């Protein structure tokens, strides 16, 4: 059987088998290669219809685009029961780990020293954990003094966090905006406290309500 004659119902069933067996996200190209008997466009539209059928409800699975491919996943609302069945411990995602991961995700490619500067603390232990868990990879070395290692996220990172691609990361809060807001807050305080002439840097002291005499 060749060409465009694949029955749509059959194609969807086939795709379901393939995605179930693969587990990992499968790219359209790989699906096309395995199926052979349907053109890419037909596969793509079948996948899109499958996705809406799954999400329409009454099903235990969802079909999602993550990490550049398609993946069948369990419904989030059953997470607890699935975990219990598998006796699976969820991946440990501590604050320092997520923070380092976020920095790499948004700033990649980024060097170790740059990460440490942003976090203000030695991050080598956290970086090792991220590498171990394949959420982050070494993307080379920077042509700079000391040739520091460059870090980037992996496809596994996209898969783990259900991201279609790096561009699907939510926008970082605008830094300029944050800075402006903070400065305005500071100026207001400055005006309301009119420091005495002798002490130039009084505003930050007047923030301490327990010690109003400090600026004397």
């Amino acid at each position, binding site marked *: 059987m060749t060409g465009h004659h694949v029955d749509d119902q059959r194609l969807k069933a086939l795709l379901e088998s393939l995605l*179930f*067996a693969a587990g*990992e996200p499968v790219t359209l190209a790989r699906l096309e290669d395995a199926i052979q008997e349907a053109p890419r466009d037909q596969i793509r539209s079948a996948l899109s219809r499958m996705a809406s059928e799954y999400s329409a409800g009454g099903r235990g699975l969802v079909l999602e685009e993550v990490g550049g491919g398609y*993946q*069948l*996943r*369990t*419904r*989030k609302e059953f*997470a607890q029961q699935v*975990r219990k069945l598998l006796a*699976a*411990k*969820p*991946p*440990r*995602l*501590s*604050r*320092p780990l*997520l*923070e380092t*991961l*976020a920095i790499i*995700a*948004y700033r990649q490619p980024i060097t170790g020293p740059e990460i440490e500067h*942003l*976090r*203000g*603390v*030695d991050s080598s*232990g*956290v970086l090792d*954990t991220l590498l171990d*868990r394949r959420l982050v990879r070494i993307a080379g070395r920077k042509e700079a003094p000391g040739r520091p290692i460059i870090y980037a996220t992996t496809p596994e990172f996209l898969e*783990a*966090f*259900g991201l279609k691609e790096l561009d699907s*990361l*939510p926008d*970082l*809060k605008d*830094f300029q905006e*944050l*800075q402006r807001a*903070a400065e305005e*807050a*500071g100026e207001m*305080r400055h005006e309301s406290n009119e420091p005495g002439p*002798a*002490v*130039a*840097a*009084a505003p*930050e*002291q007047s*923030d*301490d309500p*327990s*010690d109003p005499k400090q600026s004397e």
Partner: protein
Amino acid sequence: MNDEVAVRIEGAQGAAGGVRFRLDFYEGPLDLLLHLVKRNELSVQDVAAKVITEQYLAYLELLDSLNLDVAGEYLVMAATLLLIKSYSLLPHAEGADDDESEELKRGLIERLLEYQRYREAADKLAARSILGRDVFTTPGEPVPDGVESGPLKVSVFDLIEAISAVLRRLKDKAPRDLVLRDIPIAECLPRILAAVQSRGRIEFLSLFDDMTDRSLVVATFLGLLELLKRGEIIAYQEVRFGPIFLERGTAPAATTDTSSGS
């Protein structure tokens, strides 16, 4: 590997003969500053406020009194805060010094703001449907690694604040530092585990209820940090600033042999 309350405890003979422990926060001085800013209901713009500097230094002193050493980054930050403070205390001519102080302050605020941005991004990541936690697939199983994320996590700073309250209370109750005994931390571990196990969960403070010996409190606290690090115990709050609870973690109970000696 566990890094929620990432503390590496290593016994080492200090110069004075006392035992020193090294506290490796993966949480850095910027975390501590943000923590203090929030606690005082100030904005990041106020990070150089006197009250923040004082509390920051008090923290380092407290850690020192617990025989804990902190990473050098904490001391660098302390120096920066003190430098800003010294500029503001010294009466000086208008001009260069002033600019320098303002610049230091601005630099610090910018760093904190930038840092806060990534903290928020991290929170957003954590809220996503995470493979192995919220959603599953076949047959790729997530690498089991550590402990389930409970309700509100407790940061190492919250724990240190709680233990400082215990130590203050102790000061009122008992003659202080009559004898400073060396208590092997390894001996504290089974006792802590048993206390938690017997009731399912216990309040952090109740662990120290019957203790009047400062050394014992400190050793128990350090033992608890070790257990948290291993994931054998988890600490959480049900509400922000609420009581801290301890519960058995999902990590298998390791043998109680430990490198953290007396």
